[in-house]
Structures are given as structure tokens and as C-alpha cells.
């Protein structure tokens, strides 16, 4: 039963990724992106990471998708991307993508042969563990990421602000 749910949502992720890559409309792309994020949160729940799924929903489905839709609509006459032209770089990029994909497939097939059968059960609930380890073991990355968030917001405001000052 759980496996069927996993397969359904993984297939939905793959279909939405293909739709995102091949759509010619930025807003449709953002909606495909939202679908991908929700399916990813479902897969996080499947892997017993409920808190990560919740933060995925809040940050991506709530924040990043809204930002992308804003960006798509503020650059208004550009929501319709012109037809993709087939150039030399397209061939190169597809060769690289197929190579990386087959390499990853090879590595994961090797890994699943060695890993099969021994799932270690997670003993404690994840939210108390994440809370305590954010405040003990990972307190420095936690503070640094808070600072990074602050300076990126200030930097985004500075970049967007209408300063007529010549630098």
C-alpha cells in the first residue's frame, strides 16, 4: 500500500518535471513547480521526515512558488517563452544530461544491491530531535544560516531599490 503511494507520487513528480521543462508559459511552469513541491513533501512523509515535509510545504509551496509567480508576472510580456530553437548547445546539454542520468542510475543500482533489506528503524520522533540538535550540535550552522537569510533579504532589497546614485 505504502509502496503504491510512493510509486504514484514519484511518477507524478517525473510527469510534472517533464511538463515544467517543456511548457512555454512561465505561469504554467510555476504551477508544475508547485505540484512537484507537494509531491516531494509526500515523499518526505513516506520517509518518516514529517517536519521536513511541513517546512517544505511552508517554504516552497508557500514562499518560493509565490516569488516565482510574482517574477513571472512582473516581467509581464515575457510569460510566453518563444519556441525553443535547436542549437549546438542543445545537443551538448542533452548529451551531458543523458550521461549524468545513466551514471546516477548505475550508481544507485549498485547501491540498492548492497543496501537491500536492512532498514534501521528510527527510534525517536523527529521534531524533538531536530529541535535539540539545532540548539546543540548544529548551533553554528543555524546561526550562520539565520545571518545568511538576513543579508540576502537586505541584499535583495538593495538590488531592487531605485537608487539613482551612481556607484
Amino acid at each position, binding site marked *: 500500500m505504502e509502496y503504491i503511494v510512493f510509486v504514484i507520487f514519484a511518477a507524478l513528480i517525473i510527469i510534472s*518535471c517533464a511538463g*515544467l521543462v517543456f511548457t512555454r508559459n512561465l505561469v504554467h*511552469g*510555476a504551477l508544475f*513547480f508547485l505540484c*512537484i*513541491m507537494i509531491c*516531494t513533501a509526500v*515523499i*518526505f512523509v513516506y*520517509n*518518516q*521526515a514529517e*517536519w*521536513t515535509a511541513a*517546512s*517544505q510545504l511552508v*517554504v*516552497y509551496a508557500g*514562499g*518560493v512558488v509565490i*516569488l*516565482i509567480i*510574482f*517574477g513571472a508576472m*512582473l*516581467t509581464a510580456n*515575457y510569460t510566453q517563452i518563444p519556441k525553443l530553437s535547436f542549437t549546438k548547445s542543445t545537443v551538448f546539454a542533452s548529451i551531458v544530461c543523458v550521461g549524468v542520468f545513466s551514471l546516477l542510475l548505475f550508481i544507485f543500482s549498485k547501491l540498492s544491491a548492497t*543496501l537491500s533489506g536492512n*532498514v*534501521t*528503524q*528510527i*527510534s*525517536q520522533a*523527529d521534531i524533538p*530531535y*531536530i529541535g535539540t*540538535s*539545532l540548539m546543540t550540535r*548544529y548551533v553554528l*550552522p543555524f546561526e550562520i*544560516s539565520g545571518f*545568511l*537569510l538576513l543579508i*540576502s*533579504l537586505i*541584499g*535583495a*532589497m538593495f*538590488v*531592487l531599490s531605485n537608487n539613482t546614485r551612481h556607484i
Partner: protein
Amino acid sequence: MLIGVELMFNAANINFVAFGYRHGHLDGSIYVLFIILTAACETAVGLAIILNLYKYFKSIDPSDVHELKNYES
């Protein structure tokens, strides 16, 4: 292009969570938390840059953007 970067972040996130689940500890979730936070920062700054580029070049196609500074003015 920006959405593609986000997709790659998500693939890495799924891997972190899946391998953490497989090995029975939860540190993968914490790494995923930091990755999500960095991706949110990156999206904010990237969108600001894209809007500025649109104001300047009237286009967000990367092949139209070919100069960092306007040397005429």
C-alpha cells in the same frame, strides 16, 4: 533556469532524507532544512537580479544579457 536549480536542490533533499531514513538517523533532515533555507535565500536574490535585468534589458533571456555595466553612460 532558476526553477531548474530548485529542482536539483529538491533531488538532493530527497536523497538526504531517503538515506537518513535508510540508516536510521535523522541528521539528513537537518541538512535538508539548511538546504531549503539556502534555496529560499537564493530565490529571493535571484528574483531581485532578474527584475533588475528586466528593467534594464527588457528581457530575461540569458542570451540577451551580455554586459555587466553600461559603458556609454
